[in-house]
Structures are given as C-alpha cells and as structure tokens.
C-alpha cells in the first residue's frame, strides 16, 4: 500500500489538488480504509460546520438598513464631505435588499408547510435561516445535525470512488449531500449576485425557497428539498415575498414608489428568471402579428425621430418614452425607452433646476438602475453622475 495521504485529504476534498496529485490520492483511497475514513470524517466536519445554526437577535434585520444608513451618514459628516448623491441611496437599498432578501426564509408565514426535519440531509436547510426561525415564533423549529455525521458503508464506498471536488455535486445521498439548484453556478466560483441564488449554499437556496402551502406543488414528503423542485420555487417565492421587503427597505432609505418598484425588480433578478425574462422579451417581438408589431415599430420610430425644441416638448417626449416602456415592457426596445426617460429627465432638471424635476430624474434613474433587466446601467449611472456634478 502507498504512503498515507492524510496531509492532502483536505485539499482533495476541495478539489484543489493538481490532477496528478488528485489521481494519486484517489488511487491510494481505493486501497486504504483509514484514509478513506478520514476523508469521510473531513466531509462530515464540513457538513457540521455548514449546518451549525447562526442566530441573530429577534428583529435584528428589521433595523439593520436604518442603522447602516445612520452609520453612513455619520461617516459622511465626520469626513465633512458632500457625500454621494442621493440617488445612490436607492442603489444601495437595492443592493442591500439583494444581499438580505435571499437569506430570508419565505415560508416563515407557513410553518406547517414543511414537516420537521427528520432526514439527516434536511438539517442543512437550517443554515443561517435559523436566526429567522427564532425571530419568528411561528417558524418551523430547527434542528442540529449530529446524525448526518454518521457515515454508512455505502456512502463511504461511493465517496471513495469519487473524484475530488465532486462530492457535493454527484452524490445525492452522500455524506456531503447538498441540495443543488439544477441551474446553479458552480460552487465556490462566482457566487453571483445575491439576487441570484448564491451557489454558496445550495442548501440555503433550498431553505430559502420553501413556499407557502398554496404555492407549493404536491411535493413528495417528507421534504421539499428535491433539487429541481427547490430551484423551481425560487423565482416565484422571491417574487411573491419581495414587494413587502422592497417596500420596507425603500421606506428605510426614503425612496419613492418608482424606486421601490425598481428595487423589486432587482430582487427578482435571478438567473433563470432573468433568462426567462429575456426570452420573453424576445418572443413577443418575433411572434407579434404583423400589424401590431409594425404599429409599435412605427410608434418607436416616431418617438426616435421626434426633436424636442422646448422644455415642454422635452417633457412631452419623456412621457411618450415612458408610455412606450410602460405599454410594451416586454419589448426589447423598452430598455432604450427607459434610458431616454432618464436622459431627457436630466436635460429637463438641468434646465429648470426645480426640485420636482430633480426628484423625478432621481426616481427614474434609480428605478432603472434597480431593474433586473436593465442593460444600460453604466450609461444611466453616467447620466446621473454627470447631472450631480
């Protein structure tokens, strides 16, 4: 038997060894029970650490946004600077929301929707969300997973056969089993915007996407952790739960309704949803009956060729662009229409310097920046920055 590979097992578990090293370890594992057991032990450690609940005090996150705002404002005053323009509050709110929202268990209003975890693998679902469970008396109670630490021989066999870095992905019943959303990005890489389900904890994404009974498909008992099912819940659950959170955060950050609507858009930013949105945006354009599509194109062309020579004409043109974007939200050109709204708003606000025009510009700008489907954020950001100068 070759020399024990204890010193390389940790890196092997993470898939961080070179191909040659990993091959050597795998070969050794095939014939060494002690090292195989040690590998399983390390995997069990990860599982335990990942499953250890993290608890925040009751209502902690209710006050987090205003406290952050206070801190930022204090910091701005302390530095004596002018600080960042107000529109960035909306952007910050959207980003904050994008970070916090995916961590809120959407089922907290429906504790009975999911039976108490009894299967060892279920226990990972409680990662981090347990804090919320504690904060919500009605939430499903959480459990700690010593049981999954125990490793069966079958699991050991399959784990031994696996290559490094694939433990989490390929073995639904293994000791390191984590429910993965099917379309989730690869673990550990590009965790993505939090508006996307973070690959960080596929367990988390499953836990986060539990849904209320009326939304929940007839999933087989005892849990809703089927990867595909979990993935499919994400968009709907987030979309349903987001408005309330968006409203609250927008209030915390002093945003208007439009900005809040934009924040909701950011929250809904989830890869699959985004993909669907893009597809949806393209589909009607292709499928439009000729007359309707032609009419829309004509309207767009008419707008595009319109020259606004006066303030009133600029206002009218802005509203016309706004109307086009509102009437045809699925049209790929709606994005450009929204940008035109902001660009014209900047012109108008610069011309009048009226607070209501400035406010309108900021509302339009922040709403656009917070949109999940916005394709020209840099352009709009530049417009706003330019205006604030």
């Amino acid at each position: 038997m070759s020399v024990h590979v204890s010193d390389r097992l940790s890196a092997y578990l993470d898939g961080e060894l070179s191909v040659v090293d990993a091959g050597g370890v795998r070969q050794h594992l095939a014939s060494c029970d002690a090292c195989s057991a040690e590998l399983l032990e390390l995997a069990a450690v990860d599982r335990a650490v990942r499953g250890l609940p993290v608890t925040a005090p009751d209502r902690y996150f209710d006050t987090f946004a205003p406290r952050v705002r206070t801190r930022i404002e204090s910091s701005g005053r302390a530095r004596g600077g002018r600080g960042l323009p107000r529109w960035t509050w909306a952007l910050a709110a959207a980003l904050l929301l994008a970070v916090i929202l995916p961590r809120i268990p959407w089922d907290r209003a429906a504790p009975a929707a999911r039976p108490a975890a009894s299967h060892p693998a279920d226990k990972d679902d409680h990662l981090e969300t347990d804090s919320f469970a504690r904060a919500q008396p009605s939430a499903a109670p959480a459990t700690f997973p010593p049981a999954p630490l125990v490793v069966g021989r079958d699991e050991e066999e399959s784990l031994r056969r696996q290559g490094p870095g694939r433990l989490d992905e390929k073995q639904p019943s293994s000791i390191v089993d984590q429910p993965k959303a099917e379309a989730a990005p690869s673990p550990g890489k590009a965790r993505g915007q939090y508006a996307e389900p973070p690959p960080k904890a596929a367990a988390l994404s499953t836990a986060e996407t539990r849904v209320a009974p009326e939304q929940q498909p007839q999933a087989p008992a005892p849990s809703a952790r089927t990867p595909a099912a979990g993935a499919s819940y994400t968009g709907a659950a987030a979309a349903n739960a987001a408005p309330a959170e968006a409203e609250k955060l927008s209030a915390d950050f002093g945003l208007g309704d439009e900005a809040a609507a934009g924040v909701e858009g950011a929250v809904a930013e989830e890869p699959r949803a985004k993909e669907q949105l893009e597809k949806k945006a393209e589909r009607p354009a292709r499928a439009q009956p000729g007359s309707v599509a032609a009419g829309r194109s004509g309207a767009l062309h008419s707008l595009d060729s319109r020259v606004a020579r006066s303030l009133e004409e600029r206002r009218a043109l802005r509203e016309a662009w706004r109307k086009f974007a509102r009437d045809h939200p699925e049209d790929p050109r709606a994005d450009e229409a929204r940008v035109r709204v902001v660009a014209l708003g900047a012109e108008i606000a610069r011309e009048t310097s009226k607070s209501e025009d400035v406010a309108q510009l900021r509302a339009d700008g922040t709403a656009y920046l917070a949109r999940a489907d916005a394709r020209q954020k840099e352009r709009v950001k530049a417009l706003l920055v330019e205006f604030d100068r």
Partner: protein
Amino acid sequence: MYATALRVVRRHDLADDVAQEAFLRAWQALASFDLARPFGPWICRIAANLAVNHVRSPEAREEELPEGHAEQRAPGEDPLTRVLDREAEGLLERALSSLPPDQRAVLTLRVVEEMSYREIAEALAVPTGTVMSRLARARAKIAEALRPYLGSAGAQAGEGA
C-alpha cells in the same frame, strides 16, 4: 454577510459592527463599483476581511456566545437525540471558538462561503499554500473534537491515525 462575520468573530455585537462597516465600505466604494459584477460576493469579502482584521487586532477580546442562542428544537423529537444534538452542537461551538481566528476565517470562507483557495488567499492577503495548511489544520481539529459523533468514519479514522 452577518452570518459570515458572526462565524469568524463569534459575537453578535462584533458581527453586527462588521456587517454595518462592510456596508459603509461598500458604500464608499460604490462609485467605482462595476455594476456588472456580482455585489454579494464582493461585500461578503469585505465583511470577511473586516472580521478577520478584527479578530487579529490586539484589542479584540473573544468571548463565548451567550447561552441559549442556539435554535429551537423540533417538538416531538426523541429526547435522547435532542441531548446528543445539543452535546454535538456544544462540542462544535467550542471547537470552533478554540480555533485560531485565522483558521476559523479560512474554514468559514471555504466551507460556508464556498470560496476557492485562490479567492480566500486574495481576500485575506495570504499565500494559497497558507490557506491550504490552515484549512487542513482547522478541519483536523474540528474532526478531533467531533470524533465521538462521527460514527464509523470517525472510529476508523481515529484508529488509522
């Protein structure tokens, strides 16, 4: 982000401070932030760095988390299982708390945040080899502490060691 910080600093008030500070830093850097990049990992790395810097600082005093912060139990759960759960959880909490902060940070970033060694190395400004060795040591210590609960795998590993 708060959870990441809490796992590293081990105290709610410090984790709260770190989480808020992370947002402040992110805010200050927002003008230069590329909107095309994912925001979550970026701010989590800021938080992780702050947390590690805090526990490295001389004035940092680590205290045990207050009793009773753990989660509620499922009603009707087997009392024996409950006791074992609590014991295992307590062991794990103590084992994590006893780790050097640098090891705890690496373990958290890898196991919970699922960052690659390279990402961790960049975030903590240490060589990749250091990440690898700290992680291996941290796992070994936790495994040692949890061995009674690791079942057959733990028993075999213990015998083989």
